[in-house]
């Protein structure tokens, strides 16, 4: 029982972390240009994603 009371919050916390990360990435526009992201990785110059 004690292990459970520790493990369940950890499991849920990790899940929430993933959910939060996804919602953040959605809002930050990470999915705006999926085709472009695939070719940008091949560019030679230093390219930091802009908003």
């Amino acid at each position, binding site marked *: *029982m004690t292990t*459970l009371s520790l493990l*369940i919050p950890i*499991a*849920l916390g990790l*899940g*929430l972390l*993933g*959910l939060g990360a*996804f*919602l953040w990435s*959605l809002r930050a526009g990470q999915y*705006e*240009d*999926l*085709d*472009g992201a695939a*070719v*940008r990785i*091949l*560019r030679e110059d230093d390219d930091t994603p*802009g908003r």
Partner: protein
Amino acid sequence: MSCCAAPLISDKTRDTLSASRIALLEDLKANSKQLVDGRISYLLSAPAIHCGNCITSIEDQVGKLEGITDVRANLTMKRVAVTLDGDSRSLLPVVQALENLGYATQSLTAEEAGGSDPEFRLLVRSLAVSGFAAANIMLLSVPVWNGAEGATKELFHFISALIAIPCVAYGGMPFFRSAIAALRRRRVNMDVPISLGVTLATGMSMYESFIGGGHAYFDAATSLLFFLLIGRVLDHLMRARARAAASNLARLSAKGGFVVGEAGDLTYVALDAINPGMRLRVSAGERFPVDGTIVEGVSDVDRALVTGESDPQRVVEGTGVEAGTLNLTGPVDMLATRPARESFLAEVMQMMAAAEKGRSSYVRIADRMARIYSPVVHILAFTSFTGWMIWTGGDWHQSLTVAVAVLIITCPCALGLAVPVAHVVSAARLFANGILLKDGSALERLAAIEGAAFDKTGTLTTGEPAVASTDIPPGATAAIAKALALRSVHPAARAVAHAIDGVPEPRVSGLHEVPGHGVEGLVDGRRVRLGRRSWVAALMPEQAATDAQGVAFAIEGRGLWFTTLSERVRPGARDMITALRARNIPVTLLSGDGAAQVAAIARDIGISDWQAELKPGDKLAFLTAAAGQGRKMLMVGDGLNDAPALAAAHVSMAPASASDIGRTAADFVLTHESLSSITFAHRVAKATGQVVKQNFALAIIYNVLAVPLAMAGQLNPLLAALAMSSSSIIVVANSLRLHLLRPERAEAHGPEAGRKVKPQPMAKEAIA
């Protein structure tokens, strides 16, 4: 890109003060966004972006310009976002830089530029939340299935409830809303049994966990929502992509015009602000913004988009012109007679709205299924309830549990996925082959067609003439003719320029266009003319006896030559007609053109059933009559005159070069020049219909197997979860088979293949 729009844009680039350029800048400004730090961000549509190099060259070249703080090209949406460091900066250098790189730009309307629409964001967020809930509840359910007992089981149920309740409340919203809307209209759709199943499953599980016994179906409820939301998101994604692609196509209607003031000065006025009585100047290559009468100047007007007539018409003082027609050869002044909202265009819009009402009676296959499915399911649940009441002698709890279990197991998870997944896969296949699908139900309608009607100009033909034969000798003479032909935007001149190989003669001087007649110049002191026969023949009166038609070319004192033109049939037209006939689909040609021209084209591509000289209302009448007899017609057309017919047909297609309204009215937009994509679209639609039916069959088989178990009271959460997931996976896997569809050799026409068919080989024959 479209065959007609592209050269127009490049012609206009020479003229920096053209109305379209000013309209573009005004539009971009209107839709720009001011950032917090005072910078201005603009969003441009650049449909030509297609590869990684495009991104690099755009970002490098535009980024070098003064005043640009940020530039980012979007390959998926084919857009460029540019940020300027202040209000005073003009966007003009950016537009020019992009055009020099080969990317013609257009503005986006406010709602298109708004980026991701709120409905889609809500769906994706719901999907994320229900995915989180489904995964975690499943995690907690596994120990329960494995025999966790007592306090552990209660704790797990309790935590599951805590996760499931907000998730169902939030993630279920799209379904609840749709179900309520349907019930209000006294109809049932698939969302009614879905909403009922999900809420009842959650409610009953809460009750069971509270009293501390029995089964909890939280996992079933949340994973059901998760699967269904996947279907919804895919469906939305498909439509959004087609909409974005359609809005990226060149707009053909004018957005404003130059008003001539008292002192002869020109001011740019937006379309809505043009009033009757205003005098407008329309230069060569522009479209008339409103209906009006010519008051000064002579020119040729291309009215193909409006009337379907392919030959340009000569206009002089007093001739009436319609909004949307293209002024070809000379600048003219017109007097606006009607405001934009009452133009010929607006009349067509009204006709379309009326025509669309007839079509709205179409019921999607999923809704047709729901009409049968929902009552059956609800009757089954009710029967099990009463059955158990009688069997157990009035045990409410037991009977209700069984009834709810029936509703949960019949909740149409696979049915909800059956249609959207198949449609999304097909839409992706069509998209890859240059066909934009605006709405999934169009696939169902296309599969059912029993006849097809085609417009001629701009649909079966490219709307631009090509040289059929010429007696202009190659070499020096041809070089002079080319120099003259390049001066004009008249379609006939362009056809001649296209047909002549080699470089234009540079010694031609004094080149000028005589509106309504042709182009004139001087070579070695001799006059040279290209254009209307009677006008050109004046240079060589002794040779004018021949009665040849088409374009004439003459060098004073040297000779007179004739070139005949014919409409260029789109590649793949003949194959497409043959293929449709092989599938037992009769083809009719409906044209606004004269009978002789229509008969020639019809004979050329093998259509025996044709009608000529039709007005927009006649085409509409033809299609409504067909609909009245119960014949489901496909209409393919491009012009304003086709728009009401496109809206009235069972299903409709328009080439990308069509008028705005034509493209809006059509269900499919064909972006390749070749017409063979029509046959491919029809084949995909048929295959999709098959797969959807198979999906329904699979989903129903699963129900037939599972429902007796539920009615017997033998259902447990593990069984429910397994059955639901496996049926969904089978349906998705079956739909993915559609991805294997490839265009046959005859149907395969990439953009390159389409381009190769352009008349270069023909030109060589003609010259030789």
